[in-house]
């Protein structure tokens, strides 16, 4: 069985409009792109929009990807920037149009389910982390990326990734642990 095609090869094919090659790139990076977008926006809908837009932007700018072998890192930079632009636009729109307090964080009826409650708690806990820690903990613990992969794609030293991961987890555990009922929810979720 042959190895999966490398990013560099797929990028070169996608530059010539190869649908299968671009499709493989999307499949390979859709989850990490979503995780990075979620780490910046903190909301599912925004993360989805930003991640999808980022793939289209990346396709239209494929010639600017100078090292096709490092497509992943280049794409994550686009995702991060698109996500930041999106929340900037949204915050501007909210300031202009939506009265304060309209976007309430009060629990809605569908949030009574335990996994939804846990998700909401996690989102709050993640929101308190620095952006880089959110990104690393989501890529490592949600997407299963290795330290080395994260370091390469985020272009930071591997030791820094380990350190950020450690502090992110510590903060998450503390945040989830101090909320009454969370240990029980976690236990049930497992």
């Amino acid at each position, binding site marked *: 069985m042959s190895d999966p095609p490398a990013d560099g090869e797929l990028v070169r094919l*996608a*530059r*010539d*409009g*190869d*649908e299968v090659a*671009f*499709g493989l790139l*999307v*499949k390979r990076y*859709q*989850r990490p792109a*979503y995780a990075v977008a*979620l780490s910046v926006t903190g909301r*599912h809908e925004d993360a*989805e929009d930003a*991640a*999808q837009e980022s*793939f*289209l932007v990346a*396709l*239209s700018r494929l010639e600017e990807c100078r090292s096709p072998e490092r497509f992943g890192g280049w794409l994550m930079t686009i995702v991060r920037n698109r996500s930041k632009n999106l929340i900037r636009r949204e915050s501007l729109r909210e300031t202009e149009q939506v009265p304060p307090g309209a976007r309430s964080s009060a629990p809605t009826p569908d949030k009574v389910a335990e*996994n*939804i409650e*846990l*998700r909401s708690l*996690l*989102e709050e806990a993640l929101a308190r982390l620095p952006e880089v820690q959110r990104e690393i*903990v*989501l890529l490592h*613990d*949600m997407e299963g990326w290795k*330290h080395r992969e994260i370091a390469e794609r985020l272009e930071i030293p591997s*030791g820094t990734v*380990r*350190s950020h*991961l*450690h502090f992110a*987890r*510590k903060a*998450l*555990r503390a945040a*989830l642990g101090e909320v009454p009922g969370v240990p029980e929810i*976690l236990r049930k*979720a*497992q």
Partner: protein
Amino acid sequence: MMTWFRRGADEMLDTGTDPRIAEALETLDPASRDANYWFRFHGGVMAGAASELARRRMMARLTIVDVMASWSRTVVPTAMLAAAVAALILVRAGSGALGVSAEDVLAELPGEPVPVLQESNAAVIFASFGPDNF
């Protein structure tokens, strides 16, 4: 020494797998609510990318001959039009306004000496030095 140090640092930093946190973070995966989520996400991106991929395929099929042909389709008629306009201007200029004909312009001016490029005995002079050249 370095291995020991690295292993110690990893243990201190707690960077292995944490099933409890991984399990909790799974609830943030949209697929935990909708099993077809990533399939639909992929489809959405591919639908959005269709026109750009088609444009790229078309560009990749273009050869240098195609590019030259498309270029010449624009340039040749433009050049022909420019030549026709230039000819019209020349014909008009020749027929009147300045009153200068081609013969006038090309005629020799009286009294100007005709330049002599080579005198009749130049070859003889050169030939006379021939034997002295090594």
